[in-house]
């Protein structure tokens, strides 16, 4: 599909990839860090405030600084992807730690008593039970990633944000509106997907409510 002189499909795909890949990557990185913060009070004292501080760094600053630090080309989507990964990690470290904290002590005691080793306990019991809290964290990270992707357009990285920046320059309201509506719809769509995934992975979570 083409409109306003752009291949919209291409923009949508770029937008989705730029938002979704960093969320998944960020989750993968946040899991061990959050687990560490859950296990060790010392690690938590460093990791939680540090990730909180990271989140306050303006996105544009990160997108501009990463090429300076890493030597990536200024127009590389990697800059945006890395920025969003950092934000996701910053958001999720705490989510992971708190999700693991929330697993009742009676359950972990029982798991230890039946003979789980630490790895089995984590993957077989603690993480599955952390899914509802984690899903909430991932949804926040995902929505914020979808909106932050558009910032990349300011430095020329293609996404639906491109319609906003270019439309703004050309004083073309319909184009700007298309960019906004499109990115909001995508954010909603993926929010619903994360929610559905979380529910599928935790059918037990609604059992207490008599479902």
């Amino acid at each position, binding site marked *: 599909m083409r409109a306003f002189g752009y291949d919209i499909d291409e923009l949508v795909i770029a937008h989705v990839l730029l938002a979704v890949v960093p969320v998944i990557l960020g989750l993968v990185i946040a899991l061990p860090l959050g687990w560490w913060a859950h296990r060790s009070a010392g690690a938590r004292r460093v990791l939680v405030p540090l990730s909180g501080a990271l989140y306050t760094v303006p996105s544009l600053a990160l997108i501009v600084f990463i090429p300076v630090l890493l030597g990536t080309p200024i127009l590389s989507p990697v800059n945006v992807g890395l920025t969003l990964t950092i934000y996701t990690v910053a958001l999720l470290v705490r989510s992971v730690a708190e999700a693991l904290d929330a697993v009742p002590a009676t359950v972990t005691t029982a798991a230890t008593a039946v*003979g789980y080793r630490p790895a089995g306990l984590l993957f077989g019991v603690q993480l599955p039970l952390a899914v509802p809290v984690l899903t909430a964290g991932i949804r926040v990270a995902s929505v914020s990633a979808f909106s932050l992707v558009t910032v990349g357009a300011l430095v020329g990285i293609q996404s639906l944000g491109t319609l906003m920046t270019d439309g703004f320059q050309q004083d073309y309201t319909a184009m700007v509106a298309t960019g906004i509506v499109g990115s909001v719809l995508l954010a909603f769509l993926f929010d619903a997907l994360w929610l559905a995934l979380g529910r599928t992975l935790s059918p*037990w979570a609604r059992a207490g409510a008599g479902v």
Partner: protein
Amino acid sequence: MIEFRDVGKRFADGTVGLESLSLTAREGEITVLVGPSGCGKTTSLRTVNRMVEPTSGAVLLAGRDVAQGDPAELRRGIGYVIQQAGLFPHRRVIDNVATVPVLQGLSRREARARAAEVLERVGLDDALAQRWPAQLSGGQQQRVGVARALAGDAPVLLMDEPFSAVDPVVRVELQDELLRLQADLGKTILFVTHDIDEAIRLGDRVAVLRVGGRLAQFAPPDELLAQPVDDFVSGFVGRDRGYRRLGFLPATALRLVDLPTRADANGDTAGPAVPGEWTVLLDGSERPAAWLGPDGARHDLGSVYVTDGDDAAADAAGTLRGALDAALSSPAGRGVAVDGAGRYRGGVDTDDVLALLDRSAPR
């Protein structure tokens, strides 16, 4: 057999959980640890499966020091039941129970088959197997907890106040269930409670602990009630220990008396069998249904005295406590005696019971 040899535990913060506990839980018996809160019951239980590592002494399981070998492996061979059941909320009932067999290396299908067997054993309906733990009552959850502990076929069970979070009626049910299971399975059970009644009902031997896991007395329940070694133990077993002890004394010399009986015809209006006397109404299978008063009105039976045998010819005696309860709770002034199958055997005369009590008063 579980043997505690001078087991001591000093926690990292300096708290002494156990000073030096020496105690042997015999093979195939229920050994109960009872004592006030914080006396070290949970700590001593956990030294057995190494969820607590002792700082001195050793725990021997079937003659082997548990400190040797891999703790996770050790735990797979020891059933453990805790107060809130500790079921895995994300696994269906059947898979909760299948956990240990799976950890022991069985395929999921074999483990589920094993779990289904054990669920049936503990009296849980098949229909519950596919539920989530959150969809069970407290008593049912506790049964699943027991089933999970049994599923690994461990010869040893550790139970830490397993029934204290359920209401008293369900608790008695679960206790009966445990005794029934134990009669079949003959596990070596270490059972922790702070409820002396529970200790006395369940224990083959009861260890009363003071703070620091110091053993105050270790004896069979009737001995504990008859001869508490000191004020701490007698205070702990309570004022009414004399009455409780009756539950361990057979009413051997109790003669049953004849009572007037009559079939309990539906909606009948016939009067008492013997004018002016209380009559026992019997149902179609000879089981007492109610009292018929001299006034012609029906009255509750009260509690019945159950003799041990399950056929009318058997002469085995029930407990003195059962006889006394029957005599005192009957509106007729005499109790009704039944056999193990609930069939009418005779009457219990209050004076006879009191005379018997007189002769068997402790010391």
